[in-house]
């Protein structure tokens, strides 16, 4: 045998896998019929819908806000740059749960919110509790917090693009915003997307924190069910199955997006050459 160590490892893993399959099938504690009963039940699907809506909207706020904050952070204007730095410091430096509670109880601080001229007359004013309901507080908490993390991810991406690109675009007479949109951001995307995929998958599960302000999503729905029927393990399996399904979908989607922004790079996804078995020979450069 040429690789005795490798064969030994394979054998050990095969035995462990067999034991795992065996226990999953034979241990009655898993209660697979209960899992099947609840997988597509109304409350679970309701929670799933909220998880999806919160994830999509929070990530949208996070990505758009993150791009804005990153551009501000890199601005030559010291005021814009510092405002962005303070925002990132504040929102990354305080617990998300505290931020969610803060938005939910904003009315305690400001009972009414108004639009008007600063220090001057007001045009319209709102009751804070009506304007920021539970759902809006969830979005503010999750989205604004995410924007701070996304800002650093986007900044890293923008800084990874060679300065020569900005100079070439500038020399052609393109404006700063045209250069950002058409030249720098599309190239930065290759660096931005993998960690954004991480953030999205993480957000999927972080949405369960909204329970602290009384809102509900997938995990909360499942907890409510097992707190009455005590089928804890089967219901956690229900939640886990849905999370895994969504994560799989996201990973597939991420693959497509990465391929789109990988145009023009002979290397493909970062690192694929480093870890491929037989490196391609003789690409047409130089």
């Amino acid at each position, binding site marked *: 045998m040429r690789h005795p160590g490798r064969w030994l490892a394979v054998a050990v893993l095969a035995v462990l896998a067999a034991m795992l399959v065996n226990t999953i099938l034979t241990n009655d504690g898993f209660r697979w019929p209960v899992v099947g009963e609840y997988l597509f039940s109304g409350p679970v699907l309701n929670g799933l819908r909220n998880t999806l809506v919160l994830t999509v909207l929070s990530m949208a706020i996070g990505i758009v806000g993150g791009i804005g904050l990153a551009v501000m952070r890199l601005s030559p204007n010291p005021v814009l740059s510092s405002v962005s730095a303070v925002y990132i410091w504040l929102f990354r430096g305080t617990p998300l749960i505290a931020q969610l509670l803060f938005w939910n109880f904003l009315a305690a601080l400001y009972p009414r919110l108004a639009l008007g001229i600063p220090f001057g007359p007001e045009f319209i004013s709102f009751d804070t509790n009506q304007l920021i309901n539970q759902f809006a507080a969830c979005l503010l908490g999750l989205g604004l917090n995410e924007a701070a993390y996304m800002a650093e991810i986007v900044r890293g991406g923008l800084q990874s693009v060679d300065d020569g690109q900005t100079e070439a675009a500038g*020399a052609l007479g393109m404006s700063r915003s045209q250069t950002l949109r058409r030249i720098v951001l599309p190239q930065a995307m290759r660096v931005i997307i993998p960690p954004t995929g991480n953030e999205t998958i993480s957000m999927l599960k972080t949405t369960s924190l909204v329970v602290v302000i009384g809102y509900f999503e997938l995990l909360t729905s499942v907890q409510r069910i097992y707190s009455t029927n005590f089928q804890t393990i089967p219901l956690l399996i229900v939640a886990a199955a849905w999370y895994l399904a969504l994560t799989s979908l996201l990973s597939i989607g991420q693959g497509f997006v990465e391929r789109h922004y990988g145009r*023009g790079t002979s290397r493909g996804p970062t690192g694929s050459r480093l870890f491929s078995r037989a490196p391609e020979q003789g690409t*047409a450069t130089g």
Partner: protein
Amino acid sequence: MTTPMVEAVQVHKSFGRVEVLRGIDLTVMPGEVACVIGPSGSGKSTFLRCINHLERIDAGAMRVDGELIGYREAGGRLHELRESEVARQRRDIGMVFQRFNLFPHKTAAENVMEAPRTVRREPRRAARERAMALLDRVGLSDKYDSYPAQLSGGQQQRVAIARALAMQPRLMLFDEPTSALDPELVGEVLDVMRGLAGEGMTMVVVTHEMGFAREVGDTLVFMDEGRIVEAGQPRDVLGNPQHERTQAFLSKVL
């Protein structure tokens, strides 16, 4: 009297405490090719980058076709132009970089179309047709849809020249356009530049290619330590340098 295409008057530039340009005077007339040579660190690339305001000058004046670049004069003082006005001035000045700086996520044709499409709002079809004509002109008829990574260095630099020409510039700046190329690829890029000069394009070329400077250049400028040491007809400067620093430099490179 015709307006000079480039008119630099006592141009000064410092990076921090290092003075890179110490009073450059240079006039390039329309249709002329001016070649700038000199040791590295002599400020020649920096000077070139001042012509289209990629670097802001600290003192003096830079005019292109009679228009002050990067600044406007008001009440006897110079005020830096807004970014959009600088962008407008740059449209008429093409630039080719040492390291090509092609947009790697766009094909050769898309690289050439980019500025006409975004800056001039040209319709896609017209921009594409003109891009293809320009790529034909630099000898890349079969590479319209190749990405930069699929092209050789010489081919990339020719795409970069086509990209600069797409904005129909009055002036072309070349920043050591062949310095990053393998020796056997230098010729194809110089051929394109030679053709451009033959058609009457005004060009300022920072280069180490003495043969090109001698053959194509109308003026040769030797720079050292932020000053123009010697300037004149290439034949004279190369064949009979007056200044000892020019002699020392040329004895090393020729």
